[in-house]
């Protein structure tokens, strides 16, 4: 790809590995993946700093739109010909994402990132169950690669409303020891929600930790399921974001501290990855989607949150 990348101004911001930058990013490609779009862009500083679970904020040029749009980082390349590339996977449903689905290779996007908290990686050996819903699976593949590279066993549950909305069947199979697919209508895999198979899968895979990303009602159900099962759970939530950088306080989730007190935490800077057991779901507007039907028999001993990554 003959790229005018050298003409782009350097990203603005600090050089620290944990700080976000604002960069003019050349679009390297945009392609369909099932019902979703995969967008790749050149963003060396973001690629170097990104960790799974973090997101970027992309300025969109949709009519009369003002605010950036947040997207989870679905993957980065740090080496080789594609070094400095960042991918996001998105669903074109509103004006901003519709506009994004029309950008052309070599267009330049204004992007801020990486933002938010990454998924914490286990500090000890444990089997990891990754649960993705819709485009929420994208960042989990990125996480899964890290976990596998760390020598951990990864299993997945990938859910969607219908077969054609399942993201990354092949990636899921390649990455994980086992994959369970669920669809609401049974058009692919097990009929039902991801939580319908949660307990069985945890039991079957000996999962010691669950990571989930997808619609908030799914995350609520997964979190509550994991609490019942006694499995630590980290979820990457979505909330309306005015800024994505911690400045506006629009994106809050109620989190219960160890003292039981609930405080409103900004999803964009204290999240989007939260301990799912700590979210005071009752105080959110997130209505329980699917419910866990089966009670697990005799859960195996598993590491606690504290053992895994210190308290979060």
């Amino acid at each position, binding site marked *: 790809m003959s790229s005018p990348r050298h003409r782009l*101004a350097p990203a*603005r*911001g*600090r050089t620290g590995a944990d*700080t*976000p*930058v*604002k960069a*003019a990013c050349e679009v390297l490609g945009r392609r369909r993946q099932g019902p979703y779009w995969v967008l790749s862009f050149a963003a060396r500083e973001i690629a170097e700093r990104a960790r799974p679970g973090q997101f970027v904020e*992309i*300025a*969109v*040029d*949709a009519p*009369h*739109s*003002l*605010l*950036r749009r947040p997207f989870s980082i679905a993957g980065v390349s740090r080496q080789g010909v594609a070094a400095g590339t960042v991918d996001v996977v998105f669903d074109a449903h509103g004006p901003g994402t519709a506009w994004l689905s029309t950008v052309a290779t070599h267009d*330049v*996007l*204004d992007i*801020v990132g990486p933002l938010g908290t990454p998924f914490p990686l286990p500090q000890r050996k444990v089997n990891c169950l990754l649960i993705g819903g819709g485009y929420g699976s994208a960042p989990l593949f990125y996480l899964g690669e890290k976990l596998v590279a760390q020598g951990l066993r990864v299993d997945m549950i990938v859910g969607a409303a219908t077969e054609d909305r399942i993201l990354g069947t092949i990636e899921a199979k390649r990455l994980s020891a086992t994959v369970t697919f669920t669809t609401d209508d049974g058009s692919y895999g097990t009929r039902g929600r991801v939580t319908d198979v949660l307990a069985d899968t945890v039991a079957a895979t000996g999962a010691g930790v669950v990571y989930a990303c997808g619609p908030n009602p799914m995350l609520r159900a997964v979190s509550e399921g994991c609490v019942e099962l006694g499995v630590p759970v980290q979820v990457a939530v979505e*909330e*309306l974001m*005015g*800024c*994505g*950088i*911690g*400045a*506006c*306080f*629009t*994106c*809050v*989730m109620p989190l219960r501290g160890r003292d039981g007190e*609930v*405080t*409103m935490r900004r999803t964009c*800077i204290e999240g989007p990855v939260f301990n799912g057991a700590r979210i005071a779901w009752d*105080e*959110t*507007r997130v209505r329980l989607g699917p419910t866990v039907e089966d009670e697990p028999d005799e859960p195996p001993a598993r590491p606690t949150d504290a053992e895994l990554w210190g308290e979060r």
Partner: protein
Amino acid sequence: MSSDVRRLDPAEVAGHGADRAEVDLSTDLAGLALPDPILTASGCFASGREMDRFYDVDRIAAVVVKSITREPRRGLPTPRMAETPSGMLNAIGLQNPGVDAWVAHDLPWLAERGVRVVASIAGKSVADYRAVAEALRAADPEAATIRAFEVNLSCPNVEDRGLVFACDPSVAAEVIRGVRSVAHVPMLAKLTSDVTDIVAVARAVVEAGADGLTLINTVLGMVIDPETGRPALSNTYGGLSGPAIRPIAVRNVHQVHTAMPEVPILGCGGVREATDVIQFLRAGASAVSVGTSTFVDPFIGPTLVEELRTWCAQRGIATVRELIGTCTPWEA
């Protein structure tokens, strides 16, 4: 490039014109000397620390911090925002840690970083406002960090919906007198445009002791989800901000400046480009504060300063102060 990607980049414009360095951007806001006229708007720069991840926030002329209340405030449930044409609607409910926690955690950091702070004060009663002001004075009696107060009289999101101080000249004046009695720094009264006569409110608070005015806060608005029939915000109504309200804000500044040319004004509402700053200065503001645009561009403050310098240099304007109040109506 995207709708809110700005064409002018400080790195690019830095090359233009030999006199850029000679342009004097400094201004004075109600006795507060500032190196340039670009401040942040309350509630749009959090505590300052979040933005310091991007650049040294002591580069900002002054940071107007998120409004501080006597007690900690959890704020309103989500959804707290909605996008609107060229603007946004928000109802945060003044989420903040309360003045004690702010003094304990935020102030020391700001002091250490040498940030010039304008402390925004909010409350539910005159006593509340005064208590916050007192606590702030006690915490920084020499005004080493807190250089001014901004009294937020106009937040439409407080629980008691009937009580928007800035809507009634005499009630607004009462709050200002309360804070005045304990304030050790210049005091700006922040007003809302949602009144029949902004000049009357402005006059009342100035007579009550406000050293200057911040014009304007958000405009009350509403968005309804057409599908569900629910308000887009959990609070039903919220504050409209961003470029959409800029013409309303400029009008308020011009009206008040025309009526009381001697009163310093901090202009606020939809500032996005250097030419917007010029509009506010010409309308009569001594400086501007930038809110919603920060959400779109974290670097907006430093960028505006550079753009402003270039704009002035290109036109041979030696000091931004010479622009203040220079709007000349058409002859009839």
